[in-house]
């Protein structure tokens, strides 16, 4: 954030003509992250909270689409209590996933339905298996991807909705796809979301932009599951400290009244 502000100052200075002779090291045609369209996220701001219905839909998209290639090793099915699933729902969701359950008495690896204590199922056993299956590409783990990308939600939303045909003068490497917001525009992930791809219970809208919004909400929660509790405690702590500051200052005035 701070670096972004600094970059904005840089942009201003550049605009002011200070750097008329300077070519900033940006590849020609690349979009600046600062140009990312800003979406409205319910989790922004000191009182912001997650839109849990959207987070749950996002989890649905993850389960049906993203999880075919992306792991989320830092999450366990039990964590889904945080997005409002009941213990029964968590058990049911976990049971649909086949995960390694350790070794049996013969020393053989056991694969079976996950329990709430299991890690989210990883699509590939290791990096090499992923690369072998995906044309050399390694899909990043999504546990904290929301925090790990500059632009956060706006970037992920932009990426998921940013698939287009490459401009005519752009040479795309074979096996890569053109994306407006990916650095260098060539991304190994084919367009993951398509209109109407995932059916939501209750018939919530499921165009690409709707699903991208839901996925971002889910990833924001996954990376910062403590956020709502943190902000709630924060409001109380800051109010308490404001009160203490006032009180302490009053006592200080009292004590210092006789000096001079």
């Amino acid at each position, binding site marked *: 954030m701070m670096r972004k502000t600094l970059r904005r100052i*840089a942009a201003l200075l550049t605009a002011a003509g200070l*750097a008329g002779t300077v070519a900033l090291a940006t590849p020609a045609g690349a979009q600046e992250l600062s140009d990312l369209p800003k979406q409205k996220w319910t989790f922004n701001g000191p009182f912001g909270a997650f839109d849990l219905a959207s987070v749950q839909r996002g989890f649905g998209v993850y389960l049906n689409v993203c999880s075919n290639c992306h792991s989320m090793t830092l999450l366990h099915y039990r964590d889904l209590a945080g997005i409002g699933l009941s213990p029964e729902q968590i058990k049911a969701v976990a049971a649909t996933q086949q995960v390694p359950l350790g070794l049996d008495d013969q020393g053989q690896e056991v694969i079976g339905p996950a329990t709430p204590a299991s890690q989210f199922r990883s699509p590939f056993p290791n990096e090499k298996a992923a690369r072998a299956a995906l044309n050399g590409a390694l899909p990043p783990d999504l546990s904290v991807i929301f925090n790990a990308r500059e632009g956060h939600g706006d970037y992920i939303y932009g990426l998921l909705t940013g698939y287009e045909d490459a401009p005519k003068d752009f040479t795309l490497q074979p096996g890569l796809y053109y994306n407006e917001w990916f650095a260098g525009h060539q991304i190994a992930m084919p367009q993951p979301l398509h209109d109407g791809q995932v059916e939501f219970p209750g018939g919530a809208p499921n165009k690409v932009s709707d699903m991208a919004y839901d996925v971002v909400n889910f990833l924001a929660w996954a990376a910062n599951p403590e956020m709502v509790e943190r902000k709630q405690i*924060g409001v109380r702590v800051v109010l308490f400290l404001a009160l203490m500051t006032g009180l302490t200052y009053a006592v200080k005035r009292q004590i210092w009244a006789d000096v001079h």
Partner: protein
Amino acid sequence: MAGLHKSELTNPVIKWIDTRMPVFTMMQKEYGTFPTPKNFNYFWNFGALAMINLMIMIVTGIFLAMNYQPNTAMAFDSVQRIMRDVNFGWLLRYVHQNGASMFFIVVYIHIFRGLYYGSYKYPRELLWMIGVVLLILMMATAFMGYVLPWGQMSYWGATVITNLFSAFPIVGEPIVTWLWGGFSVDNPTLNRFFSLHYLLPFVIVGVTFLHVAALHITGSNNPLGIDVKSPQDTLPFHPYYTIKDSVGMCVYLMIFAALVFFAPNLLGDPNNFIPANPLQTPADIVPEWYFLPFYAILRSVPNKLGGVCMMFGSLLVLFVLPWLDTSPVRSARFRPIYRQLIWLWVLSAVALGVVGAHPPSGIWVAIGRVATAYYFLHFLVILPVLGKLERPLPLPESISRPVIGGGGGPMPSGATAKPMEKA
């Protein structure tokens, strides 16, 4: 029986202890009745704030260490586990992480206070030098702490910074190998950094004790920069400054809490949420904000060894500051030219911070070089010369005098610049 202490305390248990080991008398003397100049402004809060910050870091750090795994295969995940599965682990971790930034904010303001009011001058030179030692220890601790979460910036920051030592001819490469415990930043490096990151804060506690001990010999400086002349000029530390420090502490904690609870990753780098990958270098490697000015100095010099020397020099020059500044007047209030130039120095330091956040190309190189030049020029040329040329304003006769005469009103007209008594 070699001298039992004659305790004046009344509680029989405390008196019994105090007679044999007069810690209560000492506390009473050093923090109770300790005569303190009566004219401190809120800049004098920051020493106490630094002490509080150090304690917060040690306490949160001890609990984090109970759950952290200093192993390259587990470090990143173990930090995330602390955030997710340890009771209030996210709070411990975010307090510790943002506590580092708060610590530097507090200490940088504390240093600025010293520079503005001439706290480094006679008789407080040693006090100041111990302070510089503390700053360097703190930087080393913060650097090694940042490596522990083993994200991309942790790894690459550690690689870049440890590699600086390779600039020194002949001994450079062996030093780097020795620091790493191998031929690249790897598990041995992480292990020793964890060990040292746990050790150094206690060294800081010890050196802080010396810092405070030296302070209590010379007594505090004050915004007028003149010596305490009579008991009228002072107040007992308690309750006057315990309460004034408490006001500052509440405000400080409020800012700290706002950062921790509402924007815990504001000052961090998104790249450090990517696990360390020795095969993939991030687009820009940037240190944490509090190192940016030094990083900018490093990169402003085209020669690696030169850059490294300048970077270390920018800290080492502070050791000799008491002798570089030839003016006998401490407080900038009475130094009309210094009072302007110190802000120019602050501007150069801030500019270096901004430059450090950018790739070293184009206009940033030029700004970085000018700011680096001024940073050193200020200490090495301007201060020695200015002390001889500048005509200081008349100094007040005593701390209590201008207060009695209506608080900062016109100085007694006859008084000319009276140099500090040297010894």
